[in-house]
């Protein structure tokens, strides 16, 4: 049984994910200015905004991939970028000339998940994940031979290999068909139920979101509930 995600709600002093006065530049221009929000354990935040409003940059800044010009993002008082998190960006992070199984096995080794140390454990877990993703028939296929939707599902599989408290997802719904979307909502719900946090940027409404944040306005508004 894979270990559950770190439970944030049960930790009494936990104040979840806190972002204060975040400022991000891109290409020399001010993109995001003075954005603050708070996401408690078990919540899913839907990041909204037009193209170019800085959704991707904010996610990348949260992950620590680009620098924050100003402000601070913390998870339980620790810098978020130092914490373990999952980030799934526009790119799939998959090796084209490797098979589906090889890609997942690579990530299992990369994340050094303790419950996947043995080859037999990995095989079992990967087979289970692929079954949930409806990719079992493609287990030995090269990623180049997959459809866009299948690649996207495979990219999402990463989330399940190693449990991490925070998930940062950039346009996760793209290229997913209805079945894929249902699966995504399922795993997000399960993650949040265990106290995890999800922050997803998306053009389309995110049904599982408990709060939303819109970028690109004069002052970002944070509203609870989905729009």
């Amino acid at each position, binding site marked *: 049984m894979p270990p559950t995600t770190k439970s944030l709600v049960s930790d009494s002093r936990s104040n979840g994910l806190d972002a204060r006065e975040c400022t991000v530049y891109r290409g020399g221009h001010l993109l995001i200015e003075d954005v603050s929000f708070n996401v408690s354990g078990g919540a899913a935040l839907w990041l909204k905004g037009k193209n170019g409003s800085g959704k991707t940059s904010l996610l990348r800044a949260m*992950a*620590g*991939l680009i620098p924050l010009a100003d402000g601070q993002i913390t998870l339980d008082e620790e810098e978020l970028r130092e914490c*373990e*998190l999952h*980030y799934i*960006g*526009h*790119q*799939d*992070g*998959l*090796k*084209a*000339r*490797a098979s589906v199984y*090889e890609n997942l096995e*690579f*990530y299992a*080794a*990369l*994340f*050094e998940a303790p419950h996947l*140390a043995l080859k037999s454990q990995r095989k079992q877990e990967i087979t289970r994940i692929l079954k949930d993703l409806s990719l079992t028939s493609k287990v030995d296929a090269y990623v180049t031979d997959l459809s866009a939707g299948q690649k996207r599902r495979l990219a999402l599989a990463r989330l399940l290999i190693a449990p991490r408290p925070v998930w940062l997802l950039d346009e996760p719904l793209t290229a997913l068909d209805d079945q894929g979307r249902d699966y995504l909502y399922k795993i997000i719900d399960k993650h949040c139920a265990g106290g995890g946090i999800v922050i997803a940027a998306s053009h389309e409404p995110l049904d599982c979101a408990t709060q939303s944040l819109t970028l690109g306005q004069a002052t970002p508004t944070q509203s609870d509930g989905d729009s």
Partner: protein
Amino acid sequence: MRAYWAIFSQDIIMAWRLGNTSLAVAFLFIAVTLLPFGVGPELALLKRIAPGLLWVILILTMLLSLDRLFQSDLEDGSFDQLLLLNHAFEVIILTKILAHYFAIIIPVAIFLPIAGLMLNIDASALPGLALSILLAGPALSALGAIGAALSASVQRSGLLTALIVMPLYVPILIFGASVIGEPSSGLNWSSLGVLAAISLATMMLSPFAVAASLRGAER
């Protein structure tokens, strides 16, 4: 430790599957085949220039293939994932540099004796030549990685990478080619020592330059 081994082995397997390894070996033989058409098949001449020429071909092979070193990782978003890991990015880079050494340079070194014999090289010079390439290889990968990283975000950066890396390779080429002296004298052991020292130094220092460049590269 598992993570490093996974990165190392995946890089080697990908280099093979993408054809980088085969292309490097093929280029070795392309160059060796073209040479006699240019300078004539006179065996004495070929024998004299063979060691230095093989070194130059190795340098050219590297210059022409380095732009592909980080290209796929940048394009498919792998670097994002590697940056997110708990491990020091510089050590990950060093792992990739070593993978490049094993995936590209060692295969070329293996086929080098055959290429050398095609050029009528003195058989006694072959061990020294191979040793010089094996000892200098890590430096070639480490310095080449700097060029590859600096131009990683540029499309079709082959010639740009070659231009950047060429001055870095000149000292290595000088010492590498000097290992084989006149056929009568033995190996130039001090040159081999210098090559080994350069390899150690570049392996330690270049990951920092490479990491700094890759962190700033726009995907």
